[in-house]
């Protein structure tokens, strides 16, 4: 599915003293199968944008086109497109409501009007995708599961829609490092298996380079950056101006650059940054005739693509 956001404007409570324009003319395009990260401080309009992409809000101005159909309309064509967009809010475990895991995960497919056999197949597939054993968990009451398991059930409930576009709002919020790593590994696996478009909102800058190819930065309702992940996340000035954290490797490389080191600053991951620093350190120490005891591996790989 091709998503086009055309001059999107959204104002909450228009015409009242509490009016607030959350989106001020957003222009974006999402190609099928893309993996995009969305960054922005609180209040930048991220959740408003996500809700528009899922067709949950009506634009005050502009349009969101899902495969050429306006998302906010109430026509069968629009509804059919909207069903292809799966949106997971923050803390998705909060939305679990059914008496059994099976029924909760089946909620989406049932609303699509699918037959029982198809629904059951999808539920089973979705549960496996989130790492739960369908046989063990289908009949259980969701509220008796752990928080992490409930989150997986909620995500399964969205995967069972077989969406062409998967939008995740801070999927790792509140998880410990192990939980984060595991969930993101799965998300990547889902995308690789189904080739769905992945739109990921996350504050976790160490996660993004491993998952997305492109990053869009929002601030105060406008897009202030849209480009390859390495390019955007190494722009320290831009990130700081938007009130966002700069990834530590990037901050370090910038500091060294300022001190005269000839380092590339787009090495976002610790291992890459370390390699880059070691390379330049070795050059500099050779340059000053300092006998280096360097164990830096010669010709170590310069990553040009994403790290899987």
């Amino acid at each position, binding site marked *: 599915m091709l998503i086009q956001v055309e001059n999107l404007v959204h104002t909450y409570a228009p015409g009242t003293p509490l009016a607030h324009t959350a989106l001020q003319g957003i222009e974006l395009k999402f190609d099928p199968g893309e993996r995009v990260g969305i960054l922005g401080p609180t209040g930048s309009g991220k959740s408003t944008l996500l809700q528009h992409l899922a067709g949950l809000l009506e634009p005050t101005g502009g349009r969101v086109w899902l495969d050429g159909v306006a998302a906010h309309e109430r026509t069968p064509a629009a509804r059919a497109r909207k069903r292809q967009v799966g949106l997971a809010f923050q803390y998705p475990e909060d939305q679990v409501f059914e008496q059994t895991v099976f029924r909760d995960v089946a909620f989406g497919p049932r609303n699509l009007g699918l037959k029982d056999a198809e629904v059951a197949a999808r539920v089973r597939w979705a549960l496996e995708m989130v790492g739960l054993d369908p046989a063990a968990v289908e009949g259980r009451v969701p509220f008796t599961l752990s928080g992490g398991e409930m989150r997986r059930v909620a995500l399964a409930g969205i995967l069972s829609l077989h969406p062409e576009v998967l939008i995740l709002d801070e999927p790792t919020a509140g998880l410990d*490092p192990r939980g984060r790593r595991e969930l993101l590994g799965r998300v990547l696996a889902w995308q690789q298996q189904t080739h769905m478009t992945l739109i990921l909102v996350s504050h976790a800058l160490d996660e993004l380079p491993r998952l997305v190819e492109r990053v869009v930065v929002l601030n105060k309702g406008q897009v202030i950056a849209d480009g390859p992940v390495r390019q955007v996340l190494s722009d320290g000035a831009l990130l700081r101006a938007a009130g966002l954290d700069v990834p*530590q*490797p990037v901050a*370090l490389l910038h*500091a060294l650059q300022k001190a005269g080191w000839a380092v590339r600053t787009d090495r976002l991951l*610790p291992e890459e940054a*370390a390699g880059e620093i*070691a390379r330049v*350190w070795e050059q500099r120490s050779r340059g000053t005739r300092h006998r280096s005891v360097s164990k830096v591996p010669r010709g170590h790989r310069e990553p040009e693509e994403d790290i899987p």
Partner: protein
Amino acid sequence: MGALNQVFSHVPESGLASMKKPFIEIQGLEHAYPLADGGQIVALRGVDLTVERGEFVALVGSNGSGKSTLARHLNGLLMPTAGRVWVEGLLTADPRNLWAVRQRVGMVFQNPDNQLVASTVEEDVAFGPENLAIPPGEIRRRVDEALQVVGLLDYRTHPPQMLSGGQKQLVAIAGALATRPACIVLDEPTSMLDPPGRRQVIETIHRLNTQEGMTVVLITHSMDEATVAQRVLVMDGGRVAMDGPPEHVFEHGERLRALGLDRPPTVEIAHRLRGWGVPLPPGLLTVEALAGALC
């Protein structure tokens, strides 16, 4: 801070004697949660620990390591299944000491909303002193003082819903400070906050420790936050697996990973560089420190 509290008379020791003993002492602490089907989950399997006055301790571990359970023993919210916990010489298991213990150890929880009871900031901060039946004039003084310390005095009459997550947690901290505790325990206070909120909270508790001499116990699973502490305790399976200054604990990258924890990217980079022969001193925890050492 640390004014003698006349309301409670169960303090077994006072003055100089209690100053020399550790503030918190834990011996052989075990805790098992009973399950509905009669079984139990063992959350703590024998913890021995002391915390001195004025220390800033980070308690880290992945989910299920027992860190939150341990935190709740520090103010008597939980009672040991075995072993003993003393706060300033008071045994927490003794019901007569309960309120004295809670006055000495303030606690801030993870969910910013689920700690605020009142419709305005100042009334919420007043909740603790109100429970101690402190006269209104004195409550007013303490509320203003606590809000001043966290920097929210101008938000006195704001309702909670007008505050950001970070600000709500600062109100919760002020609320804990209003009872003038000697120690404040924070159970994952930043895990539901955005980066600016997290920074606000960590900076505030760091300041409380360095400027006001408050004993701080910070439970977190972010090693980045743990960097700020003087001492890091790593929990695993209900036991203390590691205990030392951050730089020492961070040495053991493999072990930390196995325990489900990450090292801050800067520490990771420093470690790799050392491994490749770049001469770097130990203890480089921040970007500034590492950059400085390299140049």
